[in-house]
């Protein structure tokens, strides 16, 4: 799994609430049997016309905005459990997603792929959107070790929560299977006792 420790980057702002996984990656693109290549269809129907021409008003098609951090409105990733949503975001070059609220399954899927979901307060989210409105190149610093996210220009900072186990997985690049496989004897004992 991809490691995550610290990054400083400009952001791609998507100030829409309840962005569901069907918007992130529509079902018709779920027919691939590998994990790669979903990035080109990330936000497909918001990003492209039917004839594959980029929609000029979508933020990912605006060269003013770029970066490894996607910032979105609350309840990001609701709906389907498709892990393809996390794969698509990562494949498109993002390493972290910031929102004031994440749907559970999406959050788990992101963590299992080294894509860091950062939940901030509504107020801090509004500050980030404001900073980017004023200066599209405004950068954020994300520090996983210290669990902080900082708006570089203003110095405004907020801490975020993360399960300590998942944090160490991200920092070290471990996944859950490695962890559970080490407990196989316990699992067999559990089955015996059942």
């Amino acid at each position, binding site marked *: 799994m991809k490691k995550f420790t610290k990054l400083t980057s400009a952001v791609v702002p998507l100030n829409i609430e*309840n962005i569901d996984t069907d918007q992130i990656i529509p079902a018709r693109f779920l027919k691939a049997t590998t994990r790669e290549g979903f990035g080109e269809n990330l936000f497909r129907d918001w990003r492209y016309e039917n004839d594959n021409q980029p929609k000029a008003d979508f933020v990912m098609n605006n060269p003013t905005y770029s970066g490894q951090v996607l910032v979105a409105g609350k309840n990001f990733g609701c709906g389907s459990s498709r892990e393809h949503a996390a794969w698509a975001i990562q494949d498109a070059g993002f390493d972290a997603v910031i929102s004031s609220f994440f749907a559970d399954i999406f959050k788990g899927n992101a963590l299992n792929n080294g894509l860091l979901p950062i939940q901030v307060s509504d107020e801090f989210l509004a500050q980030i959107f404001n900073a980017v409105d004023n200066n599209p190149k405004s950068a954020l610093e994300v520090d996983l070790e210290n669990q902080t996210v900082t708006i570089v220009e203003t110095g405004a900072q907020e801490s975020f929560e993360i399960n300590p186990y998942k944090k160490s997985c991200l920092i070290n690049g471990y996944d859950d299977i490695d962890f559970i496989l080490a407990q196989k004897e316990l699992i067999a004992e559990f089955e015996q006792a059942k």
Partner: protein
Amino acid sequence: MSKTLVEKIWDAHVVKSEEGFPDILYIDTHLIHEVTSPQAFDGLRKRGLPVFRPKQTVATADHNVPTLNQLLPIKEELSRYQVDMLTKNCAEFGVELYGLGHPFQGIVHVIGPELGITLPGKTMVCGDSHTSTHGAFGAIAFGIGTSQVEQVFATQCLLQSKPKTMKIEVNGELGKGVGAKDIILYIIAKISAAGGTGYFIEYAGSAIEALSMEARMTICNMSIEMGARGGLIAPDQTTFDYIKGREFAPAGEEWDKALAYWKTLYSDADAKFDSVLTFDAADIAPMITYGTNPGMGMGIQEHIPATGAQPEKEKLSYQKALDYMGFDDDSSLIGKPVDYVFIGSCTNSRIEDLREVADFVKGKRKADNVTVWIVPGSKQVEQQAKNEGLDKIFEAAGFQLREPGCSACLGMNEDKIPAGKYCVSTSNRNFEGRQGQNARTLLASPLTAAAAAVTGKITDVRDLLEKVNP
């Protein structure tokens, strides 16, 4: 110590619990399908691992399958490849597959219960968010991502933090023309598409207890649409009667033993929930959605809420949803023309749903402007419908009874709603493009969908019921 139902089942499945780590939770049954499993099988190959407990794993093909001429090769190349891949993977790893042509094939959340695989007290997972359906039997059932599918393949366990618990009580009697789908759409409209996030929900109260198993599955199915990890209902005599005699249900001495355990599965009277909500069944009208998430629903006689009444920072998203749907705020949907009616999906494709629709449309005919697809949840439901002569009723009404699959719920196969068209759908999601690019979905109950099919427009089904039974 008194416990909630979720805690009882959870605690009975914890292999290891350690401070600072998620629990290692044992999974009794793993359901898989063609869309979210191939990368997980690949992961096993890369690690050189087998499926640890193949006998606790059941596969079916449902998301991509055509709903006409299912025995012919699948026309769409990528869909065919994905379904073939499932067949190959199941053969290689020793997993039972109820694929196309098998009498048990169907939507994964329909076949589990009807085969007696879904049982009270079990832990069940599937790479599909509507796995919460199985909670109707008093099981802990939830959707997982593909990395977790691989975890369960490899270890029959998952790393999971214990969820918070919420109790939602619905008491009293439902009005005429109001059913389980209306209850759940009502609850989601009240608490929003994110109102259950982080919780496992137990549904209780006299209105829930009065429901059939099919209706309970409809309720639990849509738990995810308010963000909840899962939803469940304590098993009772209705549950036991439904399970008894099914293909893989315990029998003989095993039945007696199982039943004794199942009867201990309820929340203790003084158990503490993290949140409790109470609703009155009499307040619930036939529901319909007007927007692009399942929380945007209302009683069918109500007006779409005014944009001006939305919180300031939500106005933009709210108006975007209404623009997509082509609806004005503060307007009624009654009388709006409809192009398609879809009766199907893991929410409402069981025999009881088909019976209810057939009973309503018997002797009626669909409106000329509407295309009606009825997609049964499984081969068994399809066969049962034919045995009961429902197919003849549908045919006479101009409804097309197709073959089982997920179909137009998510349009991964050919069953797509064309751009700009309105579809009254018994499925679970009205997201933009969910049923086809730029398709417009209005979620409703099977009865409300049938009423739209017959009149060709959004209709309060109660008006039609009163004409039949004054």
